[in-house]
């Protein structure tokens, strides 16, 4: 009973919020609705019993990623309304509508298969977080480690790309170099 109500409520709200995200002309409105939509999606995860995933969604997506976007928005001039040229909305809505229709038709049909076998079945009696932990650190260890390295690389990349005066060192004494440069110029 609760599940049904929660599901329909969350679905309606999510769809509405995401519509605002893609249609709005104001960056702030778009971003805010995106964050709210993500919170609701974590709600979905909790309904589905994926507790760990839901918490991760909240922390990473809503917490970190939206923060990143906020900083980016601050970097660009966000008070102005984005003026976008008139795109051919007909084509866009046609494509979107068509893909929506096809996908919904595909998913509405009941899925029959005897061959679908759970690869990593859930264990009874064990909480979701523990279950995820077991699988993550045994079967999915390597992707986990690789993902860690990837995040490190992304972090460094982000720092370098966005930082100012990155070719100057904050710790070394560079005054000696200036003398050499000056001497060279004199020659």
């Amino acid at each position, binding site marked *: 009973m609760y599940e049904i109500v929660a599901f329909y409520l969350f679905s309606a709200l999510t769809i509405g919020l995401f519509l605002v995200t893609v249609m709005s002309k104001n960056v702030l409105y778009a971003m805010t609705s995106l964050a709210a939509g993500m919170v609701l999606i974590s709600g979905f995860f909790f309904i589905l019993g994926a507790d760990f995933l839901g918490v991760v969604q909240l922390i990473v997506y809503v917490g970190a990623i939206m923060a990143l976007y906020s900083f980016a928005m601050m970097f660009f001039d966000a008070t102005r309304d984005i003026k976008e040229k008139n*795109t051919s909305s007909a*084509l*866009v809505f046609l*494509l*979107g509508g*068509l*893909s929506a229709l*096809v996908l919904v*038709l*595909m998913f509405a049909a009941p899925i029959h298969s005897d061959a679908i076998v759970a690869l990593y079945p859930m264990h009874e009696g064990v909480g979701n977080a523990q279950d995820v932990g077991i699988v993550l650190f045994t079967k999915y260890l390597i992707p986990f480690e690789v993902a860690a390295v990837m995040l490190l690389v992304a972090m460094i990349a982000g720092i370098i790309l966005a930082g100012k005066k990155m070719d100057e060192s904050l710790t070394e004494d560079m005054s000696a170099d200036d003398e050499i440069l000056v001497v060279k110029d004199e020659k």
Partner: protein
Amino acid sequence: MENLVYIALFAPFVGSLFAALFGMTERKIFVGIVNSSLLAIAFLSAVTLAAHVYTTGEAIHVTMMDWINAGDLNIPFGFVVDQISVTMMVVVTTVSTVVHIYAIGYMDHDKSFNRFFSYLSAFVFSMMILVMSDNFAGLFIGWEGVGVCSWLLIGFWYHKPDQSREENPSVSPSWAANEAFIMNRIADLGMLIGIFILYWNTGSLQYDVVFAALPNLEDSVLVAAAIALFIGAMGKSAQFPLHTWLTDAMEGPTPVSALIHAATMVTAGVFLVIRANPLYSLEAVAGVSYFIASLGTFVAFYAASMALVERDLKRIIAYSTLSQLGYMFAAAGLGAYWIALFHLAAHAFFKALLFLGGGNVMHAMHDELDLFKMGELRKKMKGTWIYMTLASVALAGLPPLAGFWSKDAIIETAFNEHTYFLWFMLVITAGMTAFYSFRQVFLTFYGEDRHTPLGFHPHEMYKFVLIAMSPLAVLATITGWFMGEYKAFITHLLPHYEMSEHTHHLATWLGLIVIFFAVSGIVFAYLKYARTGTKAWKRDESKEQSFVYKLLKNQYYVPKFYEEFITKPYKIISEVFWQQIDIKIVDATVDGIAKTLYKTGDATRSMQTGNLSNYLNWMAIGGVILLVIAVISAMLV
């Protein structure tokens, strides 16, 4: 023993490669010496192998390597040295060695000296493969090889320009070379079909396997294979109607004519028929064999008739080769294979000698070959005179020289087989042969001196060349005396052909008839051509206008017929195919494909706008299309 086989086979090949290294440089005499020495080594190996086969009576089988091994088809590179092949080997290497040494002297003024030796040795190598191979595929490889080398050698002076047919019936060396090669190619189609038929029905191309399986085949298959193989032999041995290339092949240098178009390549066809004698001696194929004999007789007469009025020295000898090939085919067709092989060997010796002597004359007369311009050369060219007279006596078939024994045996065979018409034609031809060969001798060496007023100063050929020609002279004389031993030797392998009792009784009379015709031919020629003074021969212009004379002089208008009805229409067809089909259809199609691709690329370039949003549009369109396809295919399945 195996090593001797390889030496005999590959020594000429090594010589050819060695000479090819110097192909572009000027004349180097050691090239000639090295090549001749290598051929002498091959000759010695062949003789040793012959002695071995003669004493032990066994054949030597050598398999060099597996060549084709595809499914059921198994063709090794194998060679067999049995009585037939060793006969051919000895003949080929003997004549080749003499010709190589001769060429050192003959080609001394030619700037492509080295290239000549390379081609000549390559030819000997191909011929050795042809005669030594133990399967039809190897035979065919040698067949094609000698065809190619013959083309290279006939067209040796390829830079000579084309002349009109009136000036030069052979147009030019390159034209003659092409004619020879193309005619041989047409015949090779027949040979290939014969080989295919044999393989299809017997499952192998090895001689022993094929011949053992022959009695089990149907008659129609046997007849078809026999006819097809003989068509191949017709091309190589220049039987009518594929004969015009042989006289035109005289455009090549004289050593080439001596080696290829007298002794070796043209005998390959006879060799094929002799090799395939288990096929041709079957009952079912008797009609084909009789046809071969009749065609041989016809060609013998036909060629001899054309030689009666010929003015060009080498062409007379070429016609006589054609005629003698006809004799060989007559013998083979009538079942006397060993007699045909014996005549092949004897003919090789005296014909090569005749050609080489003719080359001496040509060299002395600065490449002039017109008999009407020569005369009384015996005073200035004693050695050549002796050699050519000897060879002509052998050719005419007078005892005790070689030609008598072998030719007489063939004529006796015709009598023995009760084919009296063939016998009669062969006897007449023997008389004609004697007449025209001595006509040539007398016009060249006797009679009035016609060459000095025309400004020729002939001199004899180098001494070493004359010495080199002597083995041929010796062989031309003595070969006939060993006919009995040869028969005992070769009938280990070939069918035992004996004359019947009836023929034995009449043998002496038959022989005397032939000798009578030959001698009368010589006497008639002497009376007409060899006398000096008031009875000396004078050119008779009016006789040259008569119908018979013109018919014979123009080779019965056969070359003209080929040109009008085969060459010209073919050229027109080729032009049509080229202009209409190749350019308009094939090229247009290929160009069309390229143009279509190009235009498509041009059109789709508009997709590259550089605008990300556009790209995303395209991506979405593609994704939707794929989704729709997936749904539709899922629904259909």
